[in-house]
């Protein structure tokens, strides 16, 4: 898979790209600014652009805007937004229209190379990746209705992985159960929570996110 890495810190840019190379990816471009990232994407048409959310000049939301622009101009390029803090509100806004080929992860996740590589591959394949911290925050959130109490602990696990963007196969692999079992859990979850069922893993992310935020 061909990647470009955009981060204004040289140390992090190099570190991220070397780890990704170690994980078997091909890093075809490095960028220190949002503009450069856009240029690299246009030239290289990578599978995934990994973009730091804080970039010059104001170090606020330049990365976010670059991510949106890449998605509009190059719908075939997946975008993985990295940040030193992850925010629920930001995730919701970022994924709002279309979660396909989009990821939003805490930058620290990259040290867990296996998970991180899986997330990059998901995004590169048109799926989604939502940081576990956001998902666990959403699941821990106190709610007025008790719908979440109606599902089992196992279903909760499946729900969390669904929200992070895992496919049924990936969930099955992770939980060491059969895909058939995962499908049963998923149907049960949608039933009990009253979420409209969908098989597309990235649409599922949105549906679950919408339910958990409400």
């Amino acid at each position, binding site marked *: 898979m061909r990647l470009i890495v955009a981060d204004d*810190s040289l140390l992090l840019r190099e570190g991220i790209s070397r780890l990704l190379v170690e994980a078997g990816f091909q890093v075809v471009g490095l960028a220190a600014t949002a503009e450069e990232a856009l240029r690299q994407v246009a030239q290289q048409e990578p599978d995934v652009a990994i973009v730091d959310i804080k970039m010059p000049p104001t170090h606020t*939301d330049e990365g976010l805007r670059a991510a949106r622009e890449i998605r509009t101009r190059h719908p075939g390029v997946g975008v993985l937004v990295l940040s*030193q803090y992850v925010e629920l509100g*930001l995730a919701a806004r970022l994924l709002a229209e279309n979660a396909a080929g989009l990821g939003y992860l805490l930058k620290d996740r*990259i*040290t867990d190379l296996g998970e991180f590589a899986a997330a990059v591959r998901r995004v590169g394949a048109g799926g989604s990746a939502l940081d576990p911290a956001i998902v666990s925050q959403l699941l821990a959130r106190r709610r007025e209705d008790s719908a979440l109490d109606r599902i089992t602990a196992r279903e909760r696990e499946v729900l969390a992985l669904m929200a992070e963007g895992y496919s049924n196969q990936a969930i099955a692999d992770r939980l060491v159960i059969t895909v058939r079992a995962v499908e049963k859990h998923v149907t049960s979850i949608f039933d009990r929570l009253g979420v409209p069922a969908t098989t597309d893993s990235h649409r599922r992310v949105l549906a679950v996110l919408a339910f958990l935020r409400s």
Partner: protein
Amino acid sequence: MSRRVDAVLVVAGALVAGGLAVALTATSDHEGLRVVGHPQSPVFVLLIGWSFIGSGLVAWRDPRSGRFGALMMAVGFAWFAASLEASGDPLLFSIGRVIAPLWIGIFLHALLSFPTGRLESAAARWVVGAYYLDVTVIQLAWVLFADVEGFPGCEECPANLFLVADNPALARAILIVEQPVVGVLALGSALVLLVLRWRAATAPLRRALAPVLTSGGICVLILLVTILVEPFSPATGRVVGWLGGVAFTAVPLAFLTGLLLRRLDRSSVGDLVVELGETAAPPDLRGALSRALHDPSLQIAYWLAHNDSYVDSDGRPIVLPPAGGASASTMVEHGGRRVAAVVHDASLLQDPGLIRAVCAAAGLALANARLQAELRARLDDLRESRTRIVEAGQAERRRLERDLHDGAQQRLLSVALGLRLVEVRLAGHPAEADHVARWRSELERSLEELREVAHGIHPAVLTDHGLAVALETVVARSAVPVRLSVDADGRLPEAVEATAYYLVSEALTNTAKHARAAKATVQVVRRGELLLVEVTDDGIGGADIARGSGLRGLADRVAAVEGRFTVTSPAGGGTSIKAEIPCV
């Protein structure tokens, strides 16, 4: 003393001159010249002469209007002197003929120099000079060449002793120069000057000038009409002339009325004392002083001892007007201490007694009001410095967070990445790789803690992405279920966002800790220039700003950005915390 002796002499002179004038006019054997306003009725003769001399005497005794008084008296004596033309004696008659119109010249001089007796403008000096020339030199020239037959209405007059040559054509030409030309020009200009002066005058000045300028202006107008009408219709001229006589008597009366008005102004000081005496701090002190001095522009500038400056009653700074301008200031002291300056129309300085009396009457009230104004000014200072302190604290926290993010957090993260890389390279040495992995996870926990610390110092998401995004995490972390609605497009000023953010997070923390609530609502709405923030729960209520230091802190934060903060928390009825924060 000498002024008193002089006054006695003036009175004696006026009596003698008046007597002679009446005697001359009453015994006159000829109709004589009707110089404007000089019908030969003894009553008019005495009335006009004595009223000018009398009111002139009154004015003369006050040093500030002494010159004007002298001019008024001169008008009166010149008026009596004009009666010489009624004499049957050729010499007296001839002298009277020459000096008959002189009093009008002096009158014009007095009118244009009211109230100081000095002609302040070059234009006025030119007009008065020209008119003096007209009624003296040109009048004499006319007398030199006109025989009595040439004098209108003077068929039975005695001989003109000053006649050089009887030249009716020349006499008529001179008369035309004297009256319709120079006379009309000078009187017309004088009228224009009076009108200009009136229009330029401020309200208090108009009040002082009104009686004399109005009656004097009417006199000048009548003189003009008489000069223009008499040659065509002697009968009309006679009527207008009689009207002029009435008008002239009005001028000294008007002057005396003005004096009386001033005395009445002093009595309004009495009203002021009564008005101010009723309360220690009258609500409208400025209005009371303004009424007493008849100066709508009046301002009170309270003195601030700590920085020797002046402020108005709301504590806003005032700069005193420089000397010599359209407004002036009078210092007010009370109990030996400076209290305030009254800023008023400069014309009021002409009656310093009145200003002094008003300021003295208002001294105590002004001293009380000054304390209030000083308090307000200090409160303003305090409010501004509190806002500055809060903003400086906010900026400092933001800087700290950013330093952590750009510095320690990035570096530690890159070290973690480096360690991870080492682990990959140590794939063939599981024991060593395991060691490194343990250090790395320690490092990652430190990073997590550091992230929490940085977020606690300042939520970067607030600066980077605004209030709506930042509040979503606050609400998600709340231990009580929260319904959040934010209706405020775009970014707001930093201080406003920070205040609203801390208000919501602190209020939700309180709810979780104390309210025993089942749910809470957070509403953030922008209404024009206000951001309305409301946090409501269905808990046990009973929250009190006075007791909870958290609430106290919130109230302070909102106050620091000039906002309004209210807590409604009846026992058992839930708690509602509301803030209105101005978005400027």
